[in-house]
């Protein structure tokens, strides 16, 4: 692509990203804000692709647009339901209490500080001589890593410990979600058009998730992208008002979520006990072990994201819808 068209393309992309981000923050209405944020995620996925980072573009397309948008919209609905109608009229106006103003200033200064640090880092990096040490090191060790995609090699092999801790963070997030109590009522059953969409979209999303998991070894993809795509399938089922959204019953669900970090930890400990360093895969087994860990991680990530959308402990199938203030139905362990 010659440099003038590339320049014009980049300028258009930058203008789009900046104006969408600005508009999303400047809009008074929360729902419009979320829609602008969803569009922002879509454009950002194109930007990552232009920057030759397809793994990040996949993650952005999966998480940043559809899933985050669905989550935020659900949150907007819930917060509207808790405000009396009169108060809803005034949410469009400036809330000028001292605490809010102070909070806004704090967020502004923090964002400016982060932007300043990033700008300094970028200038510093572009000013100094190119350091190719990291890509060279990765390329030199790629054959021994068990996969041929350098991103997966870094995430699941060279820096596996960091990924293990990330999965533990996700586990903690699920604990927080469970602490919110039983999930609120679901959605109304879908009309014929939406039901028809669900019928082909959910299988295709599941298939795409499996493909991304498999492709992660040799092409852009991997556990996080696959998990997010799988979560999208669960979110669609929930939006269509289905009782069964792909999450297993209580005990199995807990095992599934714990297995994300659990399998990773087990592999590391088994290797440690056989005399190798913690998470030091033997070269012949590296590919298989990575696939095993990624499969468990994909399921855990998908379950976590669906639970985040559901917003609480999922109810067992067959129990009546739960409204705020009513007594919780005595636990009927899932017959899903």
């Amino acid at each position, binding site marked *: 692509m010659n440099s003038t068209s590339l320049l014009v393309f980049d300028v*258009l992309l930058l203008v789009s990203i900046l104006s969408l981000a600005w508009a999303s923050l400047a809009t008074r209405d929360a729902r419009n804000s979320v829609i602008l944020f969803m569009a922002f995620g879509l454009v950002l996925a194109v930007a990552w692709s232009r920057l*030759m980072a397809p793994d990040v573009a996949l993650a952005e397309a999966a998480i940043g647009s559809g899933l985050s948008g669905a989550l935020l919209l659900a949150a907007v609905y819930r917060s509207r339901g808790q405000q009396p109608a009169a108060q809803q009229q005034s949410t469009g106006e400036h809330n000028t209490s001292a605490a809010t103003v102070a909070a806004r200033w704090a967020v502004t200064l923090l964002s400016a500080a982060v932007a300043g640090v990033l700008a300094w880092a970028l200038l510093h990096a572009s000013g100094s001589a190119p350091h190719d040490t990291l890509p060279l090191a990765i390329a030199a060790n790629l054959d021994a890593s068990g996969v041929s995609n350098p991103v997966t090699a870094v995430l699941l092999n060279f820096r596996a410990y960091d990924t293990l801790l990330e999965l533990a963070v996700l586990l903690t997030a699920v604990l927080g979600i469970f602490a919110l109590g039983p999930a609120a009522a679901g959605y109304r059953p879908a009309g014929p058009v939406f039901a028809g969409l669900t019928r082909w979209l959910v299988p295709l999303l599941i298939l795409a998730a499996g493909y991304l998991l498999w492709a992660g070894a040799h092409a*852009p993809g991997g556990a996080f992208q696959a998990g997010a795509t799988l979560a999208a399938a669960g979110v669609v089922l929930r939006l269509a008002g289905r009782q069964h959204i792909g999450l297993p019953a209580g005990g199995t669900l807990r095992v599934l979520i714990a297995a994300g970090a659990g399998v990773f930890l087990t592999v590391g400990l088994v290797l440690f006990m056989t005399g190798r360093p913690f998470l030091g895969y033997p070269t012949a087994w590296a590919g298989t072990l990575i696939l095993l860990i990624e499969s468990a991680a994909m399921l855990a990530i998908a379950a976590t994201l669906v639970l985040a959308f559901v917003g609480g402990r999922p109810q067992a199938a067959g129990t009546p819808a739960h409204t705020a203030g009513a007594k919780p139905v005595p636990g009927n362990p899932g017959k899903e």
Partner: protein
Amino acid sequence: MTELLSLSVLALMFCLSLGLVRILLGPGAGNRMLATQLIGTAGVGTLLLLGSLLEQPALYDVALILALLAAVAAAAFTGVREGGDG
């Protein structure tokens, strides 16, 4: 051929910018959601063209995921909560 692909990418980005105008103006959430659909479809087209231009077949996968998740976004926008006000 590569010049045509480059110009096509520019044309699609231009379409995307037109969608931007609607999303910033459009009175009401429906118009904005519609513009998001345009941004999604133009984005898919851009990614397919970029995939061919930069010879990165992985971008076709990104385009597929983008298309599917844009549908999920529209579904999330229109879902009605049980006993809720939509």
